[in-house]
């Protein structure tokens, strides 16, 4: 039994934390929060690119570090903890994973190296309106060479140079690669609950695009990308949830009311114990997701779903009860609690909300039991 990260992976996590503690504080996050014109923190992003983290799980032949998914998972946890206001998830968990899953050799060679170098910033465009996008009902269409339709919201859609888009092709769906700086693409920034991660509406009007993989197999690729992204996002959520528990615990020890620390009251202690239990449930499920991802196990669909569900629940609970523990101060703009509350909600609905993943999970369990 070896259900833990290796010493090397833990060392990597420690180095990532040190780096982010110094280079990506909540003051950096607030620079983006407080400036409507800023879609991300350029300084932080440039340093993340320099560190080579985008290429963690990209093979060396495409310019990556060729480490692996477990290494990317530990970095994701640190990025989540630091609330990094950069297009890392869009570029790495979604865009690069889509290319790795569905791209041809030429497409991978052409694009992934530029992803690692920071020349290409990627995003993943699936949502078209309220509700989870169903591949059979997409309004965005691809005719083999051109893409038409509107995607909203697209995380990092305003700063990305390229997008992977889920579109209808014939009677099925396809994943297509689009250069967002090219013709036929218009973008408009949209306002969201989470301003430290930018979002856009992207309209394609016959934009030149190329398919990733075979026509009509987009749904399978899409589900695969989502399974991969789900595990990685879950690690970001876990990092955020643990940070909330730490903040709430520190505050509960230091804040005096009625002549003693509020953390001596069972109403607070039990709340924080609940948080701890949820975070542990999330951590264990995340590790399982990481294992399934790194070994490409047949259990990946249920492992991805359960890590995402556990981490979404943990982060939601930890972020809202962190505010509650802080009392009135927790409801001020200046105290960091709301930054986590905002991020928790984005990460829970990006790539499908818990109800979508609960259905995915139960369907996977049904298939397994039927087999």
């Amino acid at each position, binding site marked *: *039994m*070896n*259900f*833990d*990260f*290796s010493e090397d992976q833990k060392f990597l996590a420690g180095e990532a934390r040190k780096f982010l503690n110094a280079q990506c504080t909540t003051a950096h996050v607030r620079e983006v929060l407080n400036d409507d014109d800023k879609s991300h923190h350029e300084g932080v992003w440039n340093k993340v690119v320099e560190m080579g983290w985008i290429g963690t799980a990209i093979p060396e032949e495409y310019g990556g570090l060729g480490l692996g998914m*477990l290494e990317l998972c530990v970095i994701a946890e640190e990025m989540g903890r630091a609330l990094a206001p950069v297009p890392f998830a869009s570029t790495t968990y979604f865009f690069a994973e889509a290319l790795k899953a569905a791209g041809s050799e030429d497409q991978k060679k052409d694009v992934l190296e530029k992803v690692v170098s920071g020349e290409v910033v990627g995003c993943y465009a699936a949502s078209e309106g309220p509700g989870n996008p169903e591949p059979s009902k997409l309004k965005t269409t691809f005719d083999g060479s051109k893409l038409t339709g509107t995607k909203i919201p697209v995380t990092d859609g305003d700063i990305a140079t390229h997008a992977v888009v889920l579109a209808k092709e014939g009677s099925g769906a396809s994943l297509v690669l689009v250069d967002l700086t090219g013709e036929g693409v218009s973008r408009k920034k949209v306002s969201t609950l989470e301003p430290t991660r930018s979002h856009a509406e992207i309209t394609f009007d016959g934009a030149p695009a190329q398919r990733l993989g075979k026509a009509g197999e987009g749904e399978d690729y899409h589900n695969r990308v989502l399974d991969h992204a789900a595990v990685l996002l879950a690690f970001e959520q876990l990092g955020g949830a643990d940070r909330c*528990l730490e903040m709430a*615990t520190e505050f*509960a*020890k230091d804040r005096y009311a009625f002549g*003693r*620390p509020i*953390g*001596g*009251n*069972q109403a*607070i*202690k*039990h709340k*924080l*114990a*609940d948080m*701890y*239990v949820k975070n*542990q*449930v*999330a*951590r*264990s*499920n995340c*590790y*399982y997701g*990481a*294992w399934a991802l*790194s*070994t490409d196990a047949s259990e990946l669909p*249920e492992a991805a*779903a*359960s890590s995402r*569900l*556990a981490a979404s*629940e943990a982060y939601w609970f930890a972020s809202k009860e962190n505010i509650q523990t802080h009392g009135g101060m927790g409801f001020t703009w200046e105290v960091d609690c709301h930054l986590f509350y905002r991020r928790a909600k984005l990460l829970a609905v990006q790539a499908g909300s818990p*109800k979508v*993943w*609960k*259905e995915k*999970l*139960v369907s996977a*369990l*049904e298939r397994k*039991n039927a087999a």
Partner: protein
Amino acid sequence: MDFNDTKEEAEFRVEARSFLEKHLKPKDANSPRRPSGEDFLKRAKEWQKTKAEGGFAQITWPKEWGGRGGSSMQQVIWNQEESKFDAPTGPFTIGLGMCVPTVIAFGSDEHKKRYVEKALRGEEIWCQLFSEPAAGSDVAGVKTRAIKDGDEWVINGQKVWTTGAHFSDYGIVLTRTDPKAPKHKGLTMFIVDMHQQGVEAKPIHQASGGREFNEVYFTDVRIPDSDRLGEVGDGWKVALVTLMNERLAVGGSPGPDWKEIMEYARDTGSLSDQAFREKLADWYVAAQGYSLTKFRTQTALSRGGTPGPENSIGKIITANQLQDICNSAIEMQDHYGIMNDTDTMPANALFQQSFMWAPGLRIAGGTDEILKNIIAERVLGLPQDVRVDKKVPFDELKQG
């Protein structure tokens, strides 16, 4: 990251499994969930003896006490394999898991020679006499009195919730020897012969209808001073060693899990109900969270670590989930679900039975609330609750 045994672990697992296959039947749907009775006790004693002779009883204990001198990891592997078989282990869980380790830690050489091997071989069963009517979560509040009389102590008082007292041969009993000292300071621990005069075990009629636990009355019970465990007044220190093992010994859910309610829902057509599907997902995620956390603990053990208070999360998850699953299964049957006849009801009325057992599981071995206090104080480092009893002589404390 992998789920594989090391070479040594794999070899031990094979050895354990072949021993189990030789002596027991694999568990199946008809295996009893909470067996009891004379025959079961006899079978349990025989199995314990077989295990001891095969070198699989108390794997981590040193060889000089009849153990295997093995690792915690081997014990985990053994437990995993044994749980797949219809193994009658219940009557020894508390004695070997909690009481006898306390005797080994605090007893004299004579005690160890006299008691340890017999317990290990299933010849004598032990029980733990801590809880009292006024000392549950606040277990240091025991009132059972021990008064020195020459070389002996005279014990009077009442214990409660004592698992297996009616079939136990010995017990460890926590008593108050100095009521003038503050609560935690005036306690002393003894070994008590459960068959001696003045000890009376009466089964408690539980809310579930069963009678697995006991009240134990002590009336002028005489215990030689040589059967004291630890110093006079050090009983709390001794009790903590016993209790440290409790949450490991209790764990595990004795009732239906997500798989069983999923099967049940499929058979009754409720699996297509969206609200049910969402609940099922929640149960799966929490149950996985618990089993996978055990794998993380196991990994830590495998690397030479020791299990800490983090294990408190297990019972919080499993006990609450059991209650929730049973509640949903009953509601799924609407009015019909209120019936509990084991012959006619689906799943042999397992959900109905466990529905009545679940409240007890949330209390036994540390209530949800106490476990949360443990996490808050020992894991997160939050301050203790206000303690008005800390420095006050025990006999001046308010009671009610």
